[in-house]
């Protein structure tokens, strides 16, 4: 096996492609000859297993340091721990495409297994669509990005190692999470295509994709959040979201998927928004492919992008084909996509959801245009116009706040219309709380270094980009000054709405059942998991907005200190205690230890920003950020230059208020999505096979966990070191990460 790994890997890719093509053909034919459906399903399972085998072979090549493979040489070395060797699977262009195909194969297998006797009229087209996407990725992987390509000059003694920026715990979990979100959007898209082809555009496919879409949305959210954490602890500029094109590429499908998970409720309940839902699902999938094109083509400059390659051309043609097919089908089925009902009044939930759709799609269009503007300007104006974070922040802030306001309004509005009485009952309490919070913020905010209004200086760069919209841009800048009080007011409104909804639900149940309040609340949630799961997600997003708000009050400073000296910034005093140097198998590490005290002189902790010099990337030292977290703010310290003999260290210090709220909000969001996804009991008797499967799965899960635990020492040898790398941007063409 050792001798034949490259041939075996490429052979498996070829077999996967043939298997996928065969399964696609069978699925397509089975629409007319249903007896072939079973064969198509078997062929799909076979393809899934072959793709899985190819991934396992590549993983084996990594752990056995098979440097005959060019991909293994470029993205690993002998000093790397097991965990990072595994993350190298998706660390580069070729492996990440195989990883994408692998996840898509798993999704396809799971979906087809789940389908079994369900949705038989849709099944052939669902399977065919899924397989067609696998075929595309199979072609790309085999002919344009084969990770099993060998080095013609022979195997080197050691590899070049993984980019230091990727040697971070979040890089082990962020890409798979984001990929799960991206790839997961293929399943709903396949159902939409099947519904369009068959003309079965009622609730059938909407009900079928509900949980698949929610699952993909959850992982899109999680992937984006983990990417934010990685950027925060790794890139060392003090923030977590820089509107980088690759970040935007991951954000775009999240926007349209969010619109869909709301819009679908209207079709389920009122048989409206059929066109919206088909378009939103299709758009979400197309945006995942578009994002992949952006990341892999090299047409945009990004710290996250893969090296420039000609893969973009493949993705561009594929995107064109997908758009043509989808638009053609939508036009063909347009008469069937008309709503069965209409919106009665603007004060209805349906109207709020239309606004929500437009706001989210508008945001997606804005971000997409701004992201591709450098390419557009290059093509039309023959000059590259850069769109910076300030521009995004200025324009996206009002859009984001509009969506935030709609998020609070939606649950309070009734179907068809909201009567004056219902309006009073729903709105009085949340609005009262919001007004009280606004007043308190205005009065007390400055005392806690969180003023309600933060005046913004004109930003020439931003205005130049705005061009013909200078006046609007200036107006937005002034609007930006009052963003803190607007955000805190809306956050209070949203949180009160959620609390009120739980309260009203439990109270209504108690009135009927006379249960104890806690039991009534728990049963209320258990009975309507989707509704209350959604409210919990809203609560999480409100927490995240509070975290985003902290940006308005952030302060930064820098200093050059020798051991024994101190530096003060907004109530924090950092005393430079000592310098120390350490080393492990893969790198040399230089730490600067600072003790941190607050304004009352209490010790808050020790931070140790560092410089890491990896043996495989000596030319690319990384700065390891040290963060002292608290609910109120983060003390974020970056080590810049370091002078050996005196131990003089140049540091950058950022105080980032409320950042922890974002991460807490993400946890709450995951909890809410989990509640909404939790399956309902069917009440059916369970066969012996179910128990057998459950027992085997449990044993396998526990065994796998124990195995991972036993390997933990090898997985993360640097776990005790402070967070992670880097103020150093990698040179152009270095693969960092991408969806």
């Amino acid at each position, binding site marked *: 096996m050792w001798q034949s790994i490259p041939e075996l890997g490429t052979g498996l890719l070829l077999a996967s492609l043939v298997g996928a093509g065969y399964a696609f053909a069978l699925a397509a034919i089975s629409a007319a000859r249903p007896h072939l459906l079973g064969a198509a399903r078997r062929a799909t399972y076979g393809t899934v297993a072959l793709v899985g085998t190819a991934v396992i072979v590549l993983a*084996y090549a990594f752990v056995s340091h098979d440097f005959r493979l060019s991909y293994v040489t470029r993205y690993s070395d002998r000093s790397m721990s097991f965990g990072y060797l595994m993350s190298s699977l998706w660390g580069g262009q070729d492996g990440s495409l195989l990883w994408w195909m692998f996840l898509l194969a798993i999704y396809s297998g799971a979906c087809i297994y789940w389908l079994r006797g369900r949705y038989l009229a849709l099944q052939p087209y669902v399977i065919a669509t899924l397989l067609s996407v696998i075929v595309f990725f199979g072609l790309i992987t085999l002919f344009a990005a084969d990770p099993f390509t060998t080095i013609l000059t022979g195997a080197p003694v050691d590899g070049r190692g993984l980019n230091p920026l990727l040697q971070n715990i979040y890089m082990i979990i962020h890409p798979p999470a984001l990929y799960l979100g991206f790839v997961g959007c293929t399943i709903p898209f396949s159902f939409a295509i099947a519904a369009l082809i068959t003309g079965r555009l009622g609730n059938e496919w909407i009900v079928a994709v509900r949980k698949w879409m929610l699952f993909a949305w959850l992982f899109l959210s999680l992937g984006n959040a983990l990417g934010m954490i990685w950027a925060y602890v790794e890139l060392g500029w003090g923030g977590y979201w820089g509107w980088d094109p690759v970040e935007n590429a991951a954000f775009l499908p999240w926007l349209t998927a969010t619109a869909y998970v709301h819009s679908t409720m209207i079709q*389920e309940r009122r048989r409206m928004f059929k066109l919206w839902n088909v378009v939103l699902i299709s758009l979400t999938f197309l945006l995942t492919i578009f994002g992949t094109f952006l990341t892999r083509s090299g047409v945009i400059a990004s710290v996250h992008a893969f090296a420039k390659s000609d893969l973009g051309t493949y993705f561009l043609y594929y995107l064109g084909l997908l758009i043509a097919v989808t638009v053609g089908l939508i036009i063909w089925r347009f008469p069937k996509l008309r709503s069965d009902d209409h919106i009665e009044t603007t004060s209805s939930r349906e109207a709020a959801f239309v606004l929500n759709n437009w706001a989210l799609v508008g945001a997606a269009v804005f971000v997409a245009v701004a992201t591709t503007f450098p390419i557009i300007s290059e093509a039309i104006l023959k000059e590259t116009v850069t769109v910076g974070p300030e521009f995004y922040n200025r324009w996206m802030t009002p859009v984001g706040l509009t969506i935030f306001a709609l998020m609070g309004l939606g649950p309070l509005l009734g179907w068809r219309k909201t009567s004056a009485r219902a309006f009073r009952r729903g709105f009085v309490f949340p609005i009262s709380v919001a007004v009280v919070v606004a007043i308190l913020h205005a009065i007390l905010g400055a005392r806690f270094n969180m003023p309600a209004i933060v005046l913004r200086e004109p930003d020439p760069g931003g205005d130049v980009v705005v061009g013909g919209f200078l006046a609007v841009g200036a107006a937005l800048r002034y609007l930006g000054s009052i963003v803190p009080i607007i955000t805190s007011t809306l956050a209070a409104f949203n949180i009160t709405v959620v609390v009120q909804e739980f309260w009203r639900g439990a109270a209504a149940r108690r009135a009927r059942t006379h249960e104890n309040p806690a039991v009534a609340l728990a049963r209320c949630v258990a009975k309507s998991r989707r509704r209350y799961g959604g409210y919990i997600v809203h609560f999480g997003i409100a927490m995240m907005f509070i975290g985003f708000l902290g940006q308005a009050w952030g302060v930064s400073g820098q200093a050059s200190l020798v051991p024994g000296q101190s530096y003060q910034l907004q109530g924090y005093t950092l005393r430079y205690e000592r310098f120390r140097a350490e080393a492990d198998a893969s790198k040399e590490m230089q730490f600067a230890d600072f003790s941190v005290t607050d304004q009352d002189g209490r010790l808050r902790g020790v931070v140790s920003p560092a410089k890491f010099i990896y043996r495989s990337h000596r030319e690319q030292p990384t700065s390891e950020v040290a963060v002292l977290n608290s609910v109120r703010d983060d003390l974020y310290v970056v080590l810049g230059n370091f002078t050996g003999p005196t131990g003089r260290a140049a540091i950058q210090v950022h105080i980032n208020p409320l950042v922890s709220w974002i991460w807490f909000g993400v946890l709450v969001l995951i909890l809410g999505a989990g509640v909404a996804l939790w399956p309902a009991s069917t009440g059916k008797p369970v066969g012996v096979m179910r128990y057998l499967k459950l027992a085997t799965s449990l044993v396998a899960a526990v065994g796998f966990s124990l195995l991972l635990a036993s390997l933990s020492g090898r997985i993360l040898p640097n776990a005790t070191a402070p967070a992670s790398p880097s103020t150093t941007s990698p040179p152009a063409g270095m693969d960092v990460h991408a969806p």
Partner: protein
Amino acid sequence: MPPEASTENAPLRPVEPQAGDFDPTRLLEAIPLLGLLASIVASVVYGFPTGLIVIGGTLLLTGIWNLWVSLQLVAGDRPGQPEATASESETDAPSYEEEQKAFLLRALDDLEFERSVGKIDDEDYRVLREQYRKRAKQALAGEDAGDPLRQEAESIVRTYLEEQGLTGPSTTSPPPASESDADEDTGADEGRGSQ
């Protein structure tokens, strides 16, 4: 492209074996899981690379076996299951009608809930409830169509109505659930009580 569906969501009905039936061939489904277990054992005893080889080998065999079964099904060398049931042991998958029914009952429940907390007024409640009930009746009728018990029940009702001299056009259609029954099912009375 296929012919247009005659009705928008007319369901195909799978044949559903009894949920408790045990089919020994289903043990084959456990092979990947057993492979995973074997790879864990191999990893612990011989190291992770060996575990990878074991799981890779299991996957390869699973792939080849499934493709072989697929070819046999295409060639007709292996008896396929009835066309509507696809290939595998799908005894526990709820049918489209069951899912629709469950969804509509939940929707009715939600409607009651929204009324009980005062989010919708009586007129909207009535209109929406009628819409849902109409759809629920269609789903229930679809689910029960062809059910001998239902036909027997219909026959009894028809006979009874004829005996009572109450036959009319409405008796030719499937008997809908009575208002009070539906209200009981969806908790409507409970909702009203909290107003």
